[in-house]
């Protein structure tokens, strides 16, 4: 379990994360949503230890993050981030094997067991046939799978994903999130798309100007009035058989004036 207690972080005087507390639940998917600049990625960096919170503390399974070495953190948390300038000639197999780095002494070679773990990770995300290919020759969806495989090879108990569906075709978006859900790992995922968040997350935290605007199940958090306040857009809720679906309009849609659940009339 990762817990963040009253975390704050500011770039200069600009508070980006402001007094945020959260906790993941074992085996469940926690979604982090909010508009651009609401502090989602910064919060993820605070939780993964790549930024130090200015106030507050992060605990991983009740151990304070600052008492753990970077290698120890990397063995507990598997983080999937976007690197914008991936000008690399590395192959898929090499990329996934790098997930074993936190377990290897700096000068040690990879062992047979590392190869086995990396191979299994690649098979688990369904791209074992791409092992020999150059990473940069893959499509966006394939790359994302490989990065998730690397995170699996890291064998952390927690998976942190920063917008894993970014720049992906709609089918790949669903494939990736379906895959993540099926892993059964405690997961924290930053998402832009509210419908994807509704469909694939057990719980949501909505951020607004670095503060928690709402937290709870997708049904509790994704309220039209809250969405309007935080995102500045009108949302309509459509209850499908198994989940919630949202549609959006810039102006309040007169055709949808029928009273909706949660919308003050």
């Amino acid at each position, binding site marked *: 379990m990762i817990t963040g207690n009253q975390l704050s972080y500011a770039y200069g005087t600009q508070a980006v994360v402001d007094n945020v507390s959260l906790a993941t639940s074992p085996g469940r998917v926690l979604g982090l949503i909010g508009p651009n600049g609401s502090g989602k990625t910064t919060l993820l960096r605070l939780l*993964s*230890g*790549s930024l130090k919170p200015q106030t507050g503390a992060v605990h991983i399974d009740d151990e304070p993050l600052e008492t753990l*070495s*970077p*290698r*120890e*953190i*990397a*063995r507990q*948390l*598997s*983080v*999937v*981030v*976007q*690197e914008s*300038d*991936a*000008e*690399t*000639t*590395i*192959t*898929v*197999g*090499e*990329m*996934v*094997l*790098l*997930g074993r*780095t*936190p377990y*290897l002494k*700096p*000068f040690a*070679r*990879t062992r047979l067991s590392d*190869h086995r773990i*990396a*191979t299994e990770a*690649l*098979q688990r995300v369904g791209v*074992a*046939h791409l*092992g*020999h290919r*150059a990473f*940069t*020759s893959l499509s966006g969806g394939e790359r994302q799978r490989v990065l998730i495989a690397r995170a699996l090879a*890291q064998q952390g108990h927690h998976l942190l994903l920063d917008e894993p569906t970014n720049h992906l075709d709609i089918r790949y978006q669903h494939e990736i999130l379906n895959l993540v859900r099926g892993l059964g790992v405690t997961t924290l995922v930053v998402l832009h798309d509210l419908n994807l968040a509704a469909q694939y997350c057990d719980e949501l935290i909505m951020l607004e100007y670095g503060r928690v605007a709402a937290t709870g199940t997708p049904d509790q958090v994704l309220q039209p009035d809250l969405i309007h306040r935080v995102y500045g857009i009108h949302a309509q809720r459509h209850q499908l058989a198994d989940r919630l679906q949202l549609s959006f309009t810039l102006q309040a849609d007169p055709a949808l004036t029928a009273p909706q659940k949660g919308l003050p009339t």
Partner: protein
Amino acid sequence: MDTYQVVDQHRADTGTTHTDDVLGVKRQRRRTVTWIIALVAATVLSLILGIAIGAVYVPPEQVVGILGHRLLGTAEGAWTEATEAIVWDVRFPRVLLGLSVGAGLALCGMALQAMVRNMLADPYLLGINSGASSGAAAAILFGAGAGLGEHALQGSAFLGALAASVLLYSIARSGGRVTSVRLLLSGVTVGYALYALTSFLIFASGSAEGARSVMFWLLGSLSLAGWGTPLLTVVLVTAFTAAVLTLFGRSVDVLAIGDETSHTLGISPEKLRTILLILVALCIGVLVSASGSIGFVGLVVPHLARRAVGSTHSRAFPVAALMGGVLLIWADLVARTLLAPQEIPIGILTAMVGAPFLLVLIRRLHSNP
């Protein structure tokens, strides 16, 4: 089509997965072993031929005999003292210097390409060679470093390189964190400032002959080779750099992907970049003070090495070092024989071969990774 391609093709055709070597690691290890064996053989051959060929031809068997006699104490053969002097005192140190400088440049180029995540980075990116040039110009034109005796030029150049390194390091660290962009900008700043200083020294001396000597040195040359402290330093520092970089291989792999990724895999990118910066700056300083700025080796060879054995740095570093060494031995051979008795600055040759080669590599880089 080699065996691996055939197997790959077969697998692609039948749709089966590579259950035996999903990661492609075994295949790359086999490739690396093959390349290393071939390159070690090429290095030995190049050493012998590099010594044999020149203004006076020495038969290779005599070269081997003389080297064996001097190094291992084997029996003396039927060669003259003059031949032994040519082989042992003139050509062997020169070929050894070429081997070390080529290897060192390739290693530093590869490390820098990973550190700043740019395939076009080369060892002169950091501006350390400009510091060495200023030192060399001061020695040639104004007799600086006369107290260093016969190695005044190399000594003065090394002091210049050291000053440039300290300057670079303090600028790069001034923001607290050594990021790749900061490293690039610091290098460019130091390089231009010291280039201006060198130009000013040439201008202020008013000596045409001196200016020509400085120019020759700037273009790179192995003609200063001889037994002594500079050669020994180059050999030792290059060997040390090769060992450390190869051992740090996996960390360099991670750093080459990105700072965020490094953090998530438990490696501090700033710390690692600082360690590598000190190592690489020292190595480049030693290399350029012994041989001037020999261009393109440090830029092109890393690409060749990665194409041969892939991007895993623990494998690519030794391969790049051997490739760079062999390449420079042959470039020097051509430089001193093509227009004999005139010697062409070796930097001109490496640039002439390197530039078109680089173009081809860049074109292939994206089409066929």
